[in-house]
């Protein structure tokens, strides 16, 4: 079955430290992959996306992610975390819906909650 997995439910880092959030996907076709961030009481904001081409993609707020087909992974990274990065992060994959006659839909991982210590 098509799925997106985020192995880490909660991560805590110190401000200024580097960050890596893990995401694994499970489906055969070339995946379209996304990372979203959700701050408390807010909707989801797109950080970055991968469709094809360069496997290292740059996003907003200093985030980047690397697509590794051999590991079925699309991990999110940031070299130096700021206190304002504390939020919940969702990895998502765009998959072909079996019910929509050719339309695609997003499936989300369960999310990783990031806490930042001063």
């Amino acid at each position, binding site marked *: 079955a098509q799925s*997106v997995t985020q192995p880490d439910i909660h991560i805590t880092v110190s401000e200024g430290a580097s960050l890596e959030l893990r995401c694994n996907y499970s489906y055969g076709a070339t995946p*379209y992959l996304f990372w*979203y961030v959700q701050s408390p*009481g*807010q*909707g*989801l*904001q*797109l950080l970055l*996306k991968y*469709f094809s081409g360069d496997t290292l993609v740059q996003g907003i707020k200093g985030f980047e992610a690397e697509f590794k087909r051999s590991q079925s992974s699309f991990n999110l990274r940031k070299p130096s975390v700021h206190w304002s990065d504390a939020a919940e992060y*969702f990895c*998502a994959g*765009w998959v072909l*819906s*079996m*019910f*929509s*006659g050719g*339309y*695609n*839909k*997003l*499936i*989300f*991982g*369960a*999310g990783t909650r990031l806490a930042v210590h001063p």
Partner: protein
Amino acid sequence: EAGVAQSPRYKIIEKRQSVAFWCNPISGHATLYWYQQILGQGPKLLIQFQNNGVVDDSQLPKDRFSAERLKGVDSTLKIQPAKLEDSAVYLCASSFAVEQFFGPGTRLTVL
């Protein structure tokens, strides 16, 4: 450019009551989505509209949930009657192509 608008932002009801949520997508976006996000989980697609037609409602509990998108613009999602397990954030999103733009959500608490 105005974003996706949702109302109300918060709603508290008792079980067996009915509730409705409203969404106004970004102008020009043909595709509209409703997601349910239960605490501690990622959003789950309930229903997807292309203009005013439904293209995927496979995960919509149709015995109690209904949604419509009249005139292919704004949309309403209704729950009748509500159950305790319906407590969640209901997110609306819209898209023109691949990228989806999300509204702030409606937090529903069912007591």
